[in-house]
């Protein structure tokens, strides 16, 4: 399903990242095309989250380049990237516990200046997630796990992203909620937002993704369409369990 005909929306070229003396990412190449839903799979400490942080600019690579919407953004700040259309649902959701639901949503639109647009989007999100509307003045820390997940998603969508990044959307959620969550991700993707998802739950991720990358000890070991990856013998053994 990769759309080789159009230009990629995101491209990582030869990324090398170090954490102190430890070489975390080694020559990572990765491309995401408009409208795709791509997942990045890998075990613990394989460098998945670091890849996402590199895309966002929270970690800067020692070498290599990050291109977003055709422009090199390797040296640009996180806020620059977010301003240009990235948004993230962070690992463990990272809701601001001391802020109300409304303030959390406003944080999602932090870099937007159009007051009316923000209010309109706020309304749209509250329609999409009626549970949040009920709790609009409640503090973030009082929400349940499922509600926090909704809030994190809504907060990311408040910036009207062209590329939505998701870090371990299944982590810490009961299997029932995981399923709901993945359906929602597919829904958002179907409405035109490109999604790049980092996930440990390979089965679930591949069931909704178009394409996947497999990261192993800091390197891209495999990449293919989701369907083919599900058939891959080595991957099946390593991550799918059967």
């Amino acid at each position: 399903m990769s759309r080789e005909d159009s230009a990629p929306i995101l491209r990582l070229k030869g990324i090398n990242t170090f954490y102190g003396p430890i070489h975390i990412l080694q020559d990572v190449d990765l491309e995401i095309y408009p409208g795709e839903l791509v997942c990045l799979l890998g075990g613990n400490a394989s460098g998945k989250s670091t890849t996402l942080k590199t895309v966002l600019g929270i970690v800067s690579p020692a070498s290599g380049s990050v291109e977003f919407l055709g422009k090199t953004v390797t040296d640009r700040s996180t806020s620059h990237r977010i301003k240009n259309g990235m948004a993230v649902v962070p690992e463990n959701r990272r809701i601001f516990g001391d802020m109300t639901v409304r303030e959390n949503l406003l944080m999602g639109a932090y870099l937007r200046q159009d007051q009316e647009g923000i209010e309109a989007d706020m309304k749209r999100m509250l329609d999409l997630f009626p549970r949040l509307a009920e709790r609009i003045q409640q503090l973030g820390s009082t929400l349940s796990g499922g509600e926090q997940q909704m809030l994190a998603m809504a907060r990311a969508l408040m910036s009207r992203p062209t590329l939505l990044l998701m870090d371990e959307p299944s982590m810490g959620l009961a299997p029932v909620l995981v399923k709901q969550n993945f359906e929602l991700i597919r829904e958002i993707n179907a409405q035109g937002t490109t999604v790049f998802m980092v996930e440990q739950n390979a089965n679930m991720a591949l069931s909704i993704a178009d394409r996947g990358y497999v990261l192993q000890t800091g390197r891209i070991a495999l990449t293919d369409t989701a369907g083919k990856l599900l058939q891959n013998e080595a991957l099946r053994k390593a991550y799918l369990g059967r």
Partner: protein
Amino acid sequence: MPSDPSENGKTTPEKGAGTEPPRIGTDEWVAQVASRKRQTRGFSGWLAMRWERIPLGWRFGMVLSLLILIPLATNTQAFLDLLGISNNAFIVRTATRFLVFALLAIGLNVVVGYAGLLDLGYVAFYGIAGYLYAYLSSDFVRIGSLGIDGLHVPALLSIPLIIAVTAMVGWLIGTISLRLSGDYLAIVTLGFGQVFVQLVLTSTRVRVPWQDRPVNFTRGPNGINRLDDVTLFGYTFESTIQYYYLFLVLLVLVYIGVRHLNFSRVGRAWRSIREDELAAEVMGAPTGRLKILAFVIGAGIAALAGSVDAAWQGNVVPVPRYSVLTLINLYAMVVLGGIGSLTGVVIGAFIFTVLPEVLRSSAVAGVLFYGAGLIGLYFLLKPFKRYALILIGTVSSGFLLKFLVLTLLPGLHTGLPEPGSILNQAVQSWLVIPADYKLVGNVVTGLSALVLLLTILARQRPRLFYPLLGISIYMLAFSWETRLALEPSATRILIVGATLVVLMIVRPHGLLGKPEVRVV
């Protein structure tokens, strides 16, 4: 798994991509640690390697014999002539101060470095021991009704007693403040230290029920003087040099004892508490008791140093000896040397007792200032060619400016009334120094800090950086000649402050400390 050696940051294209593809599902070495290979780069790396090859006992013996020889070697005529001083009293005095501070710093290191407790009241233990010694070994305590006219308890009895009492206070403070964690512990201990100094300063007229007149407990800021010397087994320590050797013996004993503790179950438990207190507790280490133990040992070492120090000095005064200033000094020693590293802490104590003393003389301070500047610049500007070019450029621009000023505005340059040493004259030869040099010097001193910071900011842009660097060199030289050299007492502390900031930025984990990994 092929391991990629060091070479942080720079990658060659053929590496990684060409080697065997990683096998899926094998989570062998996630962390490929370049630091497994000893760093031997450069001269300092070579030196460190050489030093570490010498067996531990030998290394220890070498340093120890050096310390034993210092008072003897500095008393030779050749040495005295070299420095142009008449006797080595000053050197021995400074060296003894170094030993006292090394003892204190080792004690603080047990609390801060091993157990990881930010104890800001440590200096009070030093003070309490000092005052206890003063009470037990002088004419100060006079109780007419009991016929006591000054206590003169033998040192062999009084010092262990003082250590025990101070350690008890440490236990009490530890027990109280360990209900709090982290920075709250810091403030409560800081409060304790403050209360101690304030009480000593103010307890001069205290009404007690058994006396009609108010009692003077501390003699306030004047302190208590004429304390007895330490007498051990009939031998009385009188001169500074005798105390020097006494402190040296104490330091060696404490050093070895603390070192042994560190490499034992207690030391391991302390380190594990510093890493992760909860995990340490769950693995069976009584964290509360261990932290109090660190407090108590720290207090005991401070008490040992404090009582003998009081005997050596012959008096106790609350300020500045037992004030926060001393505490800051101790922290600087511990952190600069490398928190948790015993040897580092002793080196830190050495630097921070010797540096301020050396800076006292403005001639020596000048040599240090320009010397450190020139050496620092060399490392900044390597290779030598560029370095020489910048210096020659700056100096010749200075001469050009002076020439222009002398021809166009002949009245402006007047020079300093006292040009100072040859070094000062050499520097002043290319500076324009106006008549009201103090006022201009004030402005330039303020501005030069600003220009220096701007220079640091511009270090990535050569076209801005080199001119700015030249200007900062000129301005700093001007500041030094017109203001800093004339105010040695303030300049001394200014330099110490700058040293602290720079050293922390260059080596946040101290000289001999190991950088710690927090999360991977």
